């Protein structure tokens, strides 16, 4: 039996040599279980060793293999070539982010945003080891759990038209993670994070397109985090003179 093959068209761009990106098509053999990532690895191993892309875990955990597949942001390790056959694939780096080389994007902007939201628990008072852990009920955990599932794959940034228009917008994942810490009962850092929420670059750049939540591979639903914080920011706006700083729930 002859092996089935599929055409994979990839965007190529080497900033040291190329004036602008171009496309190159490779014919790749595949089986039922061949992922898109494995297709790219086949190209790199067998056809053109210079093709550059990121990957690590191959199981939707590390978040490094996100790319545009036929214009849709997707993790290549959990997308399968069989689903595109007999058509072909066009693989491009994630939209809205600068290309570092070929399919690898520059994540600096997101990483800075991630740092800016203070993505760690800021307890009211530190507790010594002898005092034991901070305890939490299942209901308290439920309030933030979904948002803590984010793997920083940036598919949501590639999906967000507002981020595409103006990258000053904090964006879906950073807002989801901000909300993850703000809604954690062990955390007391809300006052530090609210100025980010309240800014135009915070929740107010969002027009509730909702595509971020559609493409998220982990069910994080960043759009809900943004919109819950529109409520929080509105309460904060009107009640800031009454309630102590950052008290609006």
């Amino acid at each position, binding site marked *: 039996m002859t092996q089935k093959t599929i055409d994979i068209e990839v965007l190529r761009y080497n900033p040291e040599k190329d004036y602008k990106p171009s496309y190159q098509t490779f014919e790749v053999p595949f089986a039922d279980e061949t992922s898109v990532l494995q297709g790219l690895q086949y190209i790199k191993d067998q056809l053109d060793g210079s093709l550059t892309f990121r990957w690590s875990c191959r199981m939707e955990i590390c978040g490094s293999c996100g790319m545009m597949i036929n214009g849709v942001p997707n993790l290549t390790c959990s997308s399968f070539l069989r689903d595109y056959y007999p058509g072909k694939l066009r693989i491009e780096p994630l939209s809205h982010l600068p290309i570092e080389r070929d399919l690898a994007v520059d994540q600096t902007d997101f990483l800075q*945003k991630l*740092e800016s939201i203070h993505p760690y628990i800021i307890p009211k008072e530190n507790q010594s080891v002898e005092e034991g852990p901070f305890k939490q009920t299942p209901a308290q955990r439920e309030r933030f759990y979904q948002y803590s599932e984010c793997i920083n794959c940036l598919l949501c940034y590639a999906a967000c038209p507002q981020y595409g228009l103006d990258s000053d917008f904090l964006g879906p994942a950073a807002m989801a993670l901000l909300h993850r810490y703000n809604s954690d009962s062990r955390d007391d850092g809300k006052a*530090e994070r609210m100025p980010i929420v309240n*800014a135009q670059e915070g929740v107010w750049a969002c*027009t509730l397109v909702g595509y971020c939540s559609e493409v998220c591979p982990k069910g994080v639903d960043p759009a809900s985090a943004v919109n819950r914080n*529109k409520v929080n920011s*509105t309460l904060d706006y009107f009640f800031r003179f009454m309630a102590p700083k950052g008290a609006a729930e």
Partner: protein
Amino acid sequence: MAEQSMPNQSLNQSSQRSLKRSNEPVFWALFGAGGVVAAFLLPAVILITGLAAPLGIPSPELFSYERASAFASSWAGALFLFIVISLSLWHGLHRVYHSSHELGIHRGPLLSVIRLVCYGTALGGTVLSAYWLIAAL
């Protein structure tokens, strides 16, 4: 035990960037309140004033000029009409403004003009309806 070190300093440029509080909550709150009105009250109002009244259902007298005018010049009636008219305007025009994206207008002076026209119309409608309703009390 020694105190754990806790990073609470700004760690990079972007977090040091001064962030200005947006006034958008004002418009968003009006939009949200208008959404409730547009979803729950407006359909009933349209059904009554747009269909039932002109068709004379259940009876032509029920929506006679005298009755409608008496309703609009009572405090409760005026308040109801004001809420329905004003908040629906804020809701609808906020949507129209943000729909500029669909027309490819994302920023720049044209967007500012659209914003002014939209929110100006909502504000105008609010002021005018308040004025007329109060004048008729």
